[in-house]
């Protein structure tokens, strides 16, 4: 879910030349260069109509993992196996990039069918009533060449709250198969979403790690 947003940041980091052209272009020739670069980029991204391009998540390289601690109980770690998402990146203005990621709550997997069923029940994810969790990015803030801070709205159990994620970016932009990989980590306070069961024995802090790779859509 969360991942996508990162792409705005990823590209920003991955292609600094694009941004510098835009910013530098005041004089005639420079402006021309900038326009050319932008046009080329748009061509590559196959979104000639606008500066926004779409990137596709590779499900085989994507993992939405979490862990939570509890008193008198080993750390519970698991992942969500079913998700889908869209990433649209604006190369000129990363803040206009958008990520929209949905995770099927019922796809929770903690390596125990019995416990999975329990997590799906109304005590925790209540998947019958709230089948999806959704993350929609709201901002991307570049930290350094390989890191970004991504903020977005997470909807879980019907409650929407902002969450922040720290994102590490790895770029593979050479060749024809352009890919961006990243690892997003963050902590979600489940009480914010009304998931109160077992608190305080079960911690309120859900640690989230999303790793993914996305390729440029043809």
């Amino acid at each position: 879910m969360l991942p996508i947003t990162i792409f705005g940041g990823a590209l920003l980091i991955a292609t600094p030349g694009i941004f510098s052209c835009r910013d530098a272009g005041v004089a005639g020739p420079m402006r021309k260069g900038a326009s050319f670069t932008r046009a080329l980029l748009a061509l590559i991204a196959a979104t000639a109509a606008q500066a926004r391009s779409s990137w596709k998540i590779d499900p085989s390289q994507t993992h939405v993992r979490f862990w939570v601690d509890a008193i008198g109980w080993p750390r519970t770690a698991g992942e969500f196996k079913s998700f889908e998402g869209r990433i649209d990146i604006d190369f000129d203005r990363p803040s206009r990039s958008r990520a929209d990621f949905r995770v099927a709550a019922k796809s929770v997997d903690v390596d125990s069918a019995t416990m999975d069923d329990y997590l799906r029940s109304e005590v925790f994810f209540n998947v019958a009533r709230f089948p999806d969790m959704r993350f929609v990015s709201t901002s991307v803030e570049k930290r350094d060449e390989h890191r970004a801070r991504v903020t977005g709205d997470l909807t879980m159990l019907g409650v929407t709250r902002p969450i922040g994620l720290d994102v590490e970016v790895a770029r593979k932009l050479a060749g024809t198969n352009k890919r961006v990989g990243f690892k997003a980590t963050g902590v979600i306070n489940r009480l914010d979403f009304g998931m109160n069961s077992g608190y305080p024995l079960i911690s309120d802090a859900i640690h989230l790690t999303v790793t993914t790779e996305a390729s440029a859509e043809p």
Partner: protein
Amino acid sequence: MLRNTREMWGGVAKILHWSAAAVVFAMLGLGLTMVHGDLGAGAKFEVYQLHKSTGFLVLAVTLVRGLWRIADPPPAPPAGIRPWEPPLARALHRGLYILILSMIASGWIMVSASPLPLPAHLPGGFAVPNLTGPNALLEARTKFVHEVVSKLLIAAIGLHVAAALKHHFAPIRHGPPAHAAIPS
């Protein structure tokens, strides 16, 4: 012979005895494993749920066994037994029933009182009803009872087994150990 005779336990009593032994040993094994074993969260969860479900099997076996014990009087103490032995044996047998029923009661109340709603499930998915609402203090107290009684039960089973083996391998001076539940 299904019913008890004056000298021997009958087939029903023996089957019930060994069924109870099997489920009680299984429960002690599961209980010790889930509490002290080095398990991951998922595996631990599964063992806990299995322990809770099996607890109701113990309840069923114990009730049937107790009723059969009332309906079918046990054999008389063998001739030649020391006078203090029958009352001691009776006390230990009653103690075993009481300890097992205490384990079931404390376990069921503990699960019922847990602030985290997680009922036991019987085969078929039927959720066992709770005896009480969430109550963290009651849960903590019954948990303590469950743990202490489990130790007492293990000790009582140890005595019971020792006594049974003693009668099996060191026959009473003036009579055979024909009434023993141990299949020969």
